[in-house]
């Protein structure tokens, strides 16, 4: 079976802030699971009203600066992740993974959502 949203394409994301950094979506997915991001945001960043205010992380994640700043310093319900817990490299890879996740189908095209 093809599980569309879990296919991790070998996406290489070049960060505007640091062109020398090449991020790996494949490793990003591993880091996303290891660091527990999936616990609140789901394995494909779909989010939940129970754990993330219903806001999906992907596709189309926040711009990198806003994303990384939030992860490092949020004081809201999500705990901040310092670079001691989550390295810059892992965070960049996670961002690449989120960017690699395809858009969901239009709900109008899903018969089960239009019973």
């Amino acid at each position, binding site marked *: 079976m093809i599980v569309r949203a879990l296919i991790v394409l070998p996406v290489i994301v070049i960060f505007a802030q640091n062109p020398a950094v090449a991020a790996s979506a494949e490793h990003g997915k591993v880091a996303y699971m290891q660091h*527990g991001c999936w616990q609140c945001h789901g394995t494909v960043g779909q989010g*939940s009203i129970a754990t993330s205010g219903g806001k999906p992380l992907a596709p189309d994640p926040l711009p990198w600066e806003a994303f990384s700043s939030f992860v490092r310093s949020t004081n809201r319900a999500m*705990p901040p992740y310092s670079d001691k817990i989550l390295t810059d490299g892992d965070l960049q890879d996670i961002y690449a993974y989120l960017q690699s996740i395809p858009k969901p189908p239009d709900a109008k095209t899903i018969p089960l959502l239009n*019973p």
Partner: protein
Amino acid sequence: MVRSRIDRRRFLAGVALAGAASATSEGAKAATSPIIEEAPRPSALRPSAAVAAAETGTPQISAKPAGMPGSDFMVDVIKSLDIPYLPSNPAQSFRGLHESLIDYGGNKKPEFLTCTHEETSVAMAHGYFKIAGKPLLVLCHGTVGLQHAAMAIYNAWCDRVPVIVMGGTDLDASKRPPGVPTFHSAQDVCALIRDFTKWDDQPVSLQHFAQSFVRAYKLAMTPPYEPVALALDAELQEMTANDRAKLTIPRYVPTAPPQGDLNAVREAARLLANAEHPVIVVDKCARTPNGVKLLVELAEALQAPVIDQKGRMNFPNTHHLSQNARSRALIGEADVILGLELSDYWATVNAFIDNGEINGTGLQESHIKATTKLISISSVLLNTKSNYQDFQRLQVVDIEMAADAEATLPALIEAVKQALPSSRRAAIEARGVGMKKAWSEARDRTRQAAAYAWDVSPVGTARMVMEVYVQIKDLDWSSVGGDRQLSSWASRLWPMEKHYHHIGGPGGYGIGYGAPAAVGAALANRDAGRFSVNFQPDGDMMYSPGVLWTAAHHRIPLLTVMHNNRGYHQEVMHVQRVANRRNRVAYAGKDLGPIGTRIENPVIDYGKLASSLGIWSAGPITDPNDLAPALKKAVQIVKAGEPALVDVVTQPR
């Protein structure tokens, strides 16, 4: 009977002596005499005719005492209240009543339902009430059974659900058997649950029992509904009532629920009628199906949005005034908020953010404007217990009525209609138009949110919920489990209009409620001809899996769909939060979450578990495309009157 025991003892002693004598003489013979073949002889002396008759004949039963067993009278009392079921785990401390219920009472009203744990028994009664509106009786085995039951009683207490609990005990220390029965007795057995029961008593005579049982039922069924308890003395059950005619059973007359003070009702109506942005927030408001109708009438009179916290099925989510999706924004802009039977008014109008700030306690923020007027109608104010903190933080409100909300609604609706100035009618109508637009937009957003993770593995919770819905949508269905653990998809996507379309949560958030409460609710739905479905979290299931056997044994049709995310998910996040706060990596070992929070290595096969307990099952299902055929078959099983379980490996929420 006593004589018979003595005879047997003498007989056995004779056998032992004869055996010893025989062995000695045989040994001596072997040493001095040649071996001579002899006909086999009996290894024991033949019993005398009298002993044989005592061992094999019909026991001589002493003359039956005049009168009736005390527990038969108790059954008469119980039957006067038309209690349909008695989910219980059998126990010596109520053996007298147990025997009377099934033999004298014919095992009808109440019917004994065999449970494998007292927590299960009480939770079944909890779920049953939320569908049928009738309390059940649960018998518990003295000290040990009540301790098993305690968690479920606390859930019922927090959820304002009546359950009649009776704990067996043997009061007279000079008569009760030593050993186990004494371990299971207490001088005040109800003490251990007194903090979260509304009332209890320890009857010392049969007439006292009759009075206290009817009183217990009456108090349990007066809002705020709560569990009640009676200590059930063993001697009282097994004594003889010499003159039944002198014993009376008090007639049960329901108590009228407390209504709000009329002056307070009129003042509340004036505020609501003149508000620019009134908001109605409800939690456990609709005690009965009529409560849903009354709430719709009030909301429509004001065209006020309703935010349903879902302690009960309060308000149809297909109504344009159902505005849960915008709850934060609506509360923020409200000028008047009416809270009806809220479990936590403070958390309704404030936020607590668990981020360790403010000396480690977390951020606390108000969600409302300083000028917002707050109105509360809640019967829980009439509770006077103080140890357990289910009353939550104190929220100062402007008008507060210690009254049952549903009982107060007719007067409030009338007062609102009278208070509405004609000059406000156009504005109120316009408010309704805006609500219709907002409702429609929110519905579209919710559907689109459900499309995320539609095809993933582990299975997305929205996908699972809608795969179930399409199989049951043409049936008279009832969702008998909570759905908070799966992003509330069922109550966001399914059209919920009838009072049995969902039953709210556990009340006290004690794990172990879900599976047995669902079986209890399914029992009530079975009698009403409805189809029951329960989305069952895996962690909760492992507290009380034995209830699946009870469902199979008593043929209670229920579709259980496992929300198997293989973890104690809430705790996963708590440990993660604290580890981050301390700038440490939460150690996961070989698991996918912090040690101690995951249910994996090995994973649990809930299909096999269910099968071993006599239930048809399918799964584990990890591919969403495999859901439809399994669910279709499971629905057929349930429609035929049996329970079924489909194990689905899911996304965390």
